[in-house]
């Protein structure tokens, strides 16, 4: 037999216990969610519902716009083809246009060349290493820029990074953990394909004090760069927007006036 006082005590302990079970569930779900967020995004902050929404929205807009661009380019191609089937004069115009597009990087190109793969080192920096040494284990936007510059200097004629064609207005830049090329996000490994003289380009990268040796300065990080010669490389066409909002062509009359 239990006394009234004991019964009272038991009721509240039972109720608290039931609530504890519910709370344990809540706690587990909250913990699991935070862990998943950390793993998925690499972000450790707990407060970013707004950011998540904004990101999702931007991604969606991006997709829609990209589809729009693809649609417009398809249309443009059809118009140009129709033009090419017209009279002799329009055919010449069409061929001129094709050449200009090829030079601008708006058509795919194929030829011999080299493929350079840049990736973050699999080695770990020593834990007590200073921050700037740790940075050397990662591929940065500047590495890609330098590489492209070296390749161009060695005679490369068409270059693409992870399927993004490098054209006159291509920007390569870090934004947080990803690198953006032509406003497309990508991360290590970066496959840089260059059409041009394979021998010249390879030796330009491998010359003493050159690009490859940059990965051996402080430590042997040669696993970050791989160079392969290719008999045939195909780089894709530039697929981004080709609209200029500010720059306008200067007419031939105006140049005469200046003279």
């Amino acid at each position, binding site marked *: 037999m239990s006394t009234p006082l004991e019964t009272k005590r038991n*009721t509240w302990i039972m109720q608290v216990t039931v609530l504890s*079970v519910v709370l344990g569930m809540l706690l587990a779900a909250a913990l699991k969610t935070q862990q998943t967020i950390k793993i998925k995004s690499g972000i450790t902050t707990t407060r970013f519902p707004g950011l998540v929404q904004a990101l999702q929205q931007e991604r969606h807009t991006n997709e829609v716009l990209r589809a729009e661009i693809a649609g417009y380019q398809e249309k443009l191609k059809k118009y140009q083809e129709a033009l090419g089937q017209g009279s002799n004069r329009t055919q010449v115009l069409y061929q001129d246009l094709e050449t200009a597009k090829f030079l601008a990087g708006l058509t795919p190109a194929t030829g011999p060349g080299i493929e350079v793969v840049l990736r973050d080192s699999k080695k770990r920096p020593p834990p007590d290493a200073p921050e700037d040494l740790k940075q050397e284990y990662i591929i940065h936007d500047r590495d890609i820029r330098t590489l492209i510059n070296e390749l161009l200097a060695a005679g490369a004629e068409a270059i693409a990074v992870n399927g993004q064609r490098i054209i006159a207005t291509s920007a390569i830049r870090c934004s947080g953990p990803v690198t953006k090329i032509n406003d497309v996000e990508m991360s290590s490994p970066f496959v840089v394909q260059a059409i041009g003289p394979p021998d010249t380009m390879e030796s330009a990268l491998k010359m003493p004090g050159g690009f490859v040796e940059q990965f051996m300065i402080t430590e042997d990080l040669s696993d970050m760069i791989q160079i392969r010669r290719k008999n045939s490389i195909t780089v894709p066409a530039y697929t981004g927007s080709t609209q200029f909002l500010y720059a306008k062509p200067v007419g031939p009359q105006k140049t005469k006036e200046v003279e």
Partner: protein
Amino acid sequence: MTWLPLLGLIVGFVIIYFPNVTVPGGMASYFSLATLAGFDSLFGGIRAGLEDKFRSDIFLSGFIVNALLAVLLAYLGDQIGVDLFLAAVVALGGRIFLNLSLIRRYWLTNIALAKRESSQG
């Protein structure tokens, strides 16, 4: 008997933790806030029980209403650009610490009383 709530907490945790249940990303922080409100109610209930003031209607309604209110306020704060989330965390956190210290006090007093009784008896 006294350890039942702790056991319950562990049981509930295990039930949800291993089958990999997650909350949608946008809701995660509100969900954590609700959990915090739940803890506030839980310790409040234990404290009331120790003080012999436990009432199940207050306990249950407190759990649900506090959690909902905290989430609602935090959501409203996000909408109007004021970080009421922090206010809720500070208020609830403060109360949790207060209740925990009171629970510890009652517990220690009870132990001391029991010792005195046994030494006298």
